[in-house]
């Protein structure tokens, strides 16, 4: 459902992504872990077609982001890190606009809007302007907009940012429910966050993918070494300069 092949991206002389490759299948939740500045948001901007691909290839839901960007956009739900919303719009009108921009109207739009409003618990702010909403509500509005067109691919960049602990727990359960039939890629710089939701962990450090393993396998390795997940991840970060062997084949010693 998501296929990233040898993607490299530069901002001028600075390399943001360096030969990144991975796949995410339908029904899989992949968590992107990495410190700030690791290149996670750049990768999400490439996946969402916002940034043009400089090198390598990206395919989502069977469509190439360069050759068929509109087909890709029609099939992704994207929640960017800074969650851009039209502050001057009412929440209900904003959701209706996003639905209409995805070609929904009439009963289909009404049913989807009703569902996202209920699931994202937006009823109490529906007639408020976005600018009047708290950070937590804004995050939920962004998530509702990402879901309104029932996308087969979900791209969530730091989705729990701004949510309180109860909302975070609720969000994790919600993402789990959304997974069947969908490929979900989300990012965080918090290991516990990624480990709590993901089937698979991908670790990005300074633009390089230094770890790509199923969570269960990573946990088994940690148990075998009597270490914690955090220990293994920190070790991978430290060894990232010579980490080629860690990628794919799980070279965590």
């Amino acid at each position, binding site marked *: 459902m998501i296929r990233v092949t040898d993607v490299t991206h530069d901002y001028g002389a600075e390399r943001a992504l360096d030969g990144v490759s991975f796949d995410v299948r339908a029904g899989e939740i992949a968590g992107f872990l990495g410190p700030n500045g690791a290149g996670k948001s750049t990768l999400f901007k490439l996946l969402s*077609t916002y940034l043009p691909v400089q090198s390598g290839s990206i395919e989502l*839901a069977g469509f190439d982001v360069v050759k068929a960007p509109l087909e890709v956009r029609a099939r992704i739900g994207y929640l960017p890190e800074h969650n851009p919303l039209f502050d001057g719009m009412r929440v209900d009108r904003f959701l209706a606009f996003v639905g209409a921009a995805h070609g929904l109207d009439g009963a289909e739009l009404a049913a989807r809007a009703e569902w996202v409003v209920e699931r994202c618990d937006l009823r109490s702010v529906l007639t408020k302007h976005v600018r009047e909403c708290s950070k937590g509500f804004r995050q939920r509005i962004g998530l509702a907009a990402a879901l309104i067109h029932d996308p*087969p691919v979900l791209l969530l960049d730091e989705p729990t940012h701004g949510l309180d602990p109860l909302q975070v727990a609720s969000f994790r359960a919600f993402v789990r429910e959304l997974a069947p039939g969908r490929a979900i890629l989300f990012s965080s710089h918090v290991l516990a966050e990624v480990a709590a939701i993901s089937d698979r962990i991908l670790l990005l450090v300074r633009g390089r993918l230094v770890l790509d393993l199923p969570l269960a396998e990573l946990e088994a390795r940690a148990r075998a070494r009597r270490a914690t997940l955090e220990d293994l991840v920190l070790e991978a970060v430290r060894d990232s300069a010579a980490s080629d062997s860690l990628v794919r084949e799980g070279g965590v010693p």
Partner: protein
Amino acid sequence: MDRAAADPQLPASVRGRKPRFVAGIRAVVQRELGGWFDAPVAWIALALALFATSSWFLNEFFLANRLDLAPFFDRLPWVYVLLVPALAMRVWSEDLRARTFELWMTLPLTPLQVVLGKYVGALVVLAAFLAGTLPIVAFLCTLGSPDLGRIAAGYAGAFLLGAQLLALGQLLSALFADALVAFLASAVLSAVLLAAGEERVVAVLDGLAPALGGGRALADVLSPLPRYGAFVGGSVGLAAVLWFAATAAAFLWANVRVAERARS
């Protein structure tokens, strides 16, 4: 996140659907109009412009004692120099500042649909301004029988001139994330284009190099003022309509290119 409702998943035929070309533009227009009339700047600009044009007109009307709208149409281009940039400055600048530009560019809409939708939304506001001046026409009709055909031609010219300057302002709004800079650039450029068509400016430029005839050439090629003047005089020419449409289209095309490049 509430756990009650089951996901009303869309049929496979609907998943991944994109809006048709016109439906996509309509969605953008509706969003933009919602934004326009939610922001006090649009109301303030419209109210000030209506007050200024009505005051000027009534002043000149009572001095000249003529039953026509010429004083209104003569002043209008210079009202546009401030009004149109005020309307256009936030069209893109606001998106660039608030980073909603990323939202626009990741929806399944082409940049052309977004640019046209934003433009049509701004045109509706411009049309609302012109409609707000219609009580002046009603006032004239209560006093006698003004030449309504000529007045209609004047309004057509006023709309075309506004539409052209709006396209220019929208382009500049895409170039400058700072709305104030976009406003100033748009106001200065609009003033230069209009001034190039003023007879006094043409005479001065022609006087500087009589052999070149640069002033007249500049007015004929670049300035919307002579063509607008023909409309106000009651002459609706197809060539002038096409000129306004073509120049507005050129600005909008450039706007599409700027929006595409702004992604990288």
